[in-house]
């Protein structure tokens, strides 16, 4: 009796989670499985019937494409320089919003606003602000005696411009840091003050260790995001000038939809997945030494 009831309940459990099982199978397992399969073939189009198994050829010939290495280096730039800059920017902004002054809620509202701007609108706005001839930024810099800079059209400026754009829309990370800062127990600061610790010292010895789990979380999310940088580069400058903003995912997109080499695009996707997994794993490993979890001895 009891046993059959439990069986019935298990059946009900599967009925309730059925939407997820179907979604997970159709939109994750099957595409992922086929992509691994196609990565070892020479299929040109989705649903191609005529294809051959080519083993690891796609992975070996990935490097033949001169853009491949360039796009990998560009992506590494966004990871190696972009992630620390954006994360530090978020932390500084969260600390500003943690000031105990009147009207702080209004500042928080406005700091977060750009994060809710659709990316296409963001790009339009940035093209207006950074326009070499008529933009407000160059006009302002001109007053300070600077020459006009072609920000978006410049091979050396486009990547920093994209990183700055990321800071502009970094509101979600700022909110996560702000929540973490508010959770640091006040008595720790009070104790430190009694011991005569000042600003920087308090930040290094109390704030940083106490919010280190959030820092790790934001760094991992941002690292994954920057490895996948694409939309910003596509919309802002079509990956140019001279492929300076041509990212790895941009290259995947081009392999599939311009060169019509779907199997190559899938091999590249798997390569990226392996790279992201590896870096995330390493980050988690080295973080054990720096991240402080409350309640841990």
């Amino acid at each position, binding site marked *: 009796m009891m046993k059959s009831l439990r069986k019935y309940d*298990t059946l009900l459990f599967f009925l309730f*989670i059925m939407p997820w099982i179907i979604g997970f199978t159709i939109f994750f397992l099957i*595409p992922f499985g086929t992509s691994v399969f196609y990565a070892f073939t020479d299929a040109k189009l989705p649903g191609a019937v005529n294809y051959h198994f080519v083993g690891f050829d796609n992975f070996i010939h990935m490097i033949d494409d001169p853009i491949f290495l360039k796009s990998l280096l560009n992506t590494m730039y966004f990871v190696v320089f972009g992630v620390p800059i954006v994360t530090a920017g978020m932390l500084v902004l969260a600390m500003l919003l943690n000031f105990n002054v009147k009207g702080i809620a209004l500042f928080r509202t406005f700091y977060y606003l750009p994060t809710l701007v*659709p990316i*296409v609108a963001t790009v*339009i706005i940035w093209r207006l*602000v950074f326009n070499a001839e008529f933009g407000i930024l160059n006009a302002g810099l001109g007053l300070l005696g600077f020459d006009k800079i072609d920000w978006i059209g410049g091979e050396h400026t486009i990547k920093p411009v994209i990183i700055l754009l990321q800071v502009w829309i970094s509101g979600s990370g700022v909110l996560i840091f702000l929540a973490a800062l508010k959770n640091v127990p006040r008595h720790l600061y009070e104790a430190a003050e009694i011991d005569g610790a000042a600003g920087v010292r308090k930040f290094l010895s109390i704030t940083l260790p106490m919010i280190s789990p959030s820092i790790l979380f934001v760094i991992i999310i941002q690292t994954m995001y920057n490895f996948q940088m694409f*939309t910003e580069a596509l919309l802002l400058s079509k990956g140019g000038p001279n492929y300076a903003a041509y990212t790895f995912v941009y290259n995947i997109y081009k392999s599939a939809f311009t060169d019509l080499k779907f199997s190559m695009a899938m091999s590249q996707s798997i390569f990226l997945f392996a790279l*992201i997994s590896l870096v995330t794993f390493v980050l988690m490993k080295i973080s054990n030494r720096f991240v402080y979890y409350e309640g841990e001895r």
Partner: protein
Amino acid sequence: MNGGQKSSITATVSKYALLLAALVLFVGPLVWMLSTMMKTKAETYKVPPTIFPEHMNFEAFERLFAVQPMMWQWIQNSFAISFFVALGAVVSSSIVAYGFSRFATKYRDKLFPIVLLTLMIPPSIMMIPSYVLFAKLGWIDTWLPLIVPAWLGGAYYIFLFRQFFLTIPQELDEATYLDGGNRWTVYARVIMPLSKPIIITTIIFAFVNSWLDFLGPFLYIKNNELFTLSVGLQLLIGQTSQDFPALAAGAFISIIPIGLLYFFAQRYIVEGVVLTGSKG
């Protein structure tokens, strides 16, 4: 004593100075957009540029709708898609989350980590495989790739709902069983009515995320009658790249719905971000 007061005033002033400096960085570009969209086309070519429009006007909007008569259609499309996504997210994720929070079976503890694991999969590696799948299903050039996945339980929202359901006391479930209720009555009549805050958070969050989505509609929809506003605007960048006021007007229109939602329901958006730690 006096000195202490003075230094606290200096501290407050410098705090506001820093806050205002950062405010300029965040709001400045938006103000520039507002100013540009109200200028005449000629005024936007002035060097040095004017910060406030000399002859404030809204002709940019007329030009925008004249160049791109599809604008209204795109706005409606974006609303329709975001609406169905939000509805699907609430219905499917809450049902799945009920399963994951109220059934004591060994399968639950095996499957729930997989739900969380899918959150860690970089979406862009799924870009090409998903495209291939949708092409095979004949879903390219339809809204189905954008809407159907939302009706099949999104991991973020399942997580959100489950966290909330776990705070609702089990005693309420048992009381309902004693009254002759079953699993479904508990879900529909007890749990859901008590979950209004998380339902609202999910509706808003899913609506906003769908409205902000660019890559999905960009990859799967080629027929411009079915475009979302974002994809349509992207087309516009190419068409009228030198008509700055019209471009600014287009950007402005795409911000309005979310902007309004934000000012009226900020609490829920902030909550959603902090709870899921997702990128908005």
